[in-house]
């Protein structure tokens, strides 16, 4: 039976290769709970990004009917498809009413403080090449998701070190980093987290 700090190494945190003692698992669960809502948001957005990247080819020029009209700076854009459905906002792929041009438009809730000052709709990107436009937007979203993930790790780190300083907080944070960067699709950071875990195991003289 494998033991560490007098505790049985009893479990594997869900979604992570880390093995925890009971105390470490409690620290992991508490720290992860503080980031769960945003973690779920990242996961949902990531699914939507994959989905719209896979289905864009269906949205051929001129074939889709507008599902709504979105007026931005005098242009009545034809909303073709939702790309992201966020908790408060939405992002639509839109087509120019007269020209061969597409736009990614972010819609804000009318009653929000942001929309009252800046308007309900903002064009994020425009391009006549649909595939290029969607690819560029997908890259922007991925970048934002990685940014969100790094912030979640910082928060989890604070909780782990402040509330569970005796429960291998560094290891707990590595496991959380691994999950966050994995869900955000950041392979490089996942590899970094794995390397950090590998180094820590080597430092403890464990076979890896």
């Amino acid at each position, binding site marked *: 039976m494998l033991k560490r700090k007098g505790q049985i190494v009893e479990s594997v945190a869900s979604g992570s290769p880390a093995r925890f003692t009971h105390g470490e698992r409690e620290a992991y669960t508490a720290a992860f709970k503080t980031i769960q*809502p*945003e973690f779920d*948001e990242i996961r949902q*957005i990531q699914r939507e990004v994959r989905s719209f990247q896979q289905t864009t080819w269906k949205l051929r020029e001129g074939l889709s009917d507008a599902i*709504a009209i*979105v*007026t931005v700076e005098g242009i009545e854009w034809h*909303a073709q498809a*939702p790309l*992201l459905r*966020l*908790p*408060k*906002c*939405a992002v*639509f792929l839109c087509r120019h009413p007269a020209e061969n041009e597409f736009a990614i438009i*972010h*819609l*804000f*809730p*009318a*009653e*929000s*403080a*942001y*929309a*009252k*000052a*800046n*308007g*309900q*709709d903002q064009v994020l990107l425009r391009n006549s090449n649909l595939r290029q436009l969607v690819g560029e937007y997908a890259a*922007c979203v991925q*970048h*934002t*998701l990685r*940014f*969100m993930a790094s*912030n979640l790790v*910082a*928060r989890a*780190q*604070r909780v782990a070190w402040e509330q569970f300083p005796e429960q291998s907080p560094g290891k707990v944070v590595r496991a959380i980093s691994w999950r966050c960067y994995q869900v955000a699709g950041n392979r490089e950071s996942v590899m970094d987290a794995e390397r950090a875990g590998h180094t820590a195991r080597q430092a403890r003289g464990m076979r890896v």
Partner: protein
Amino acid sequence: MTNEERNPLLPSGGDASAPADKPLTVSEAARMLGVDSFTVFSLIQRDKLVPSRSPTGEIVLTPSELAKLTQAER
């Protein structure tokens, strides 16, 4: 679409009331602006908001920074 109209493409949202003068987390800033966390992060990346970092490395936003955005001229 005008500001007064409710956008049928969107879910509900928006608490414009400003709490105390301490730096806000992204979630708190999102609530204040009436948007979601993802939107706040994308506003930061588009240089519409300038964030700070808390001592633990978390992104925070000052109420005065948010005020620049909510008082912007269209």
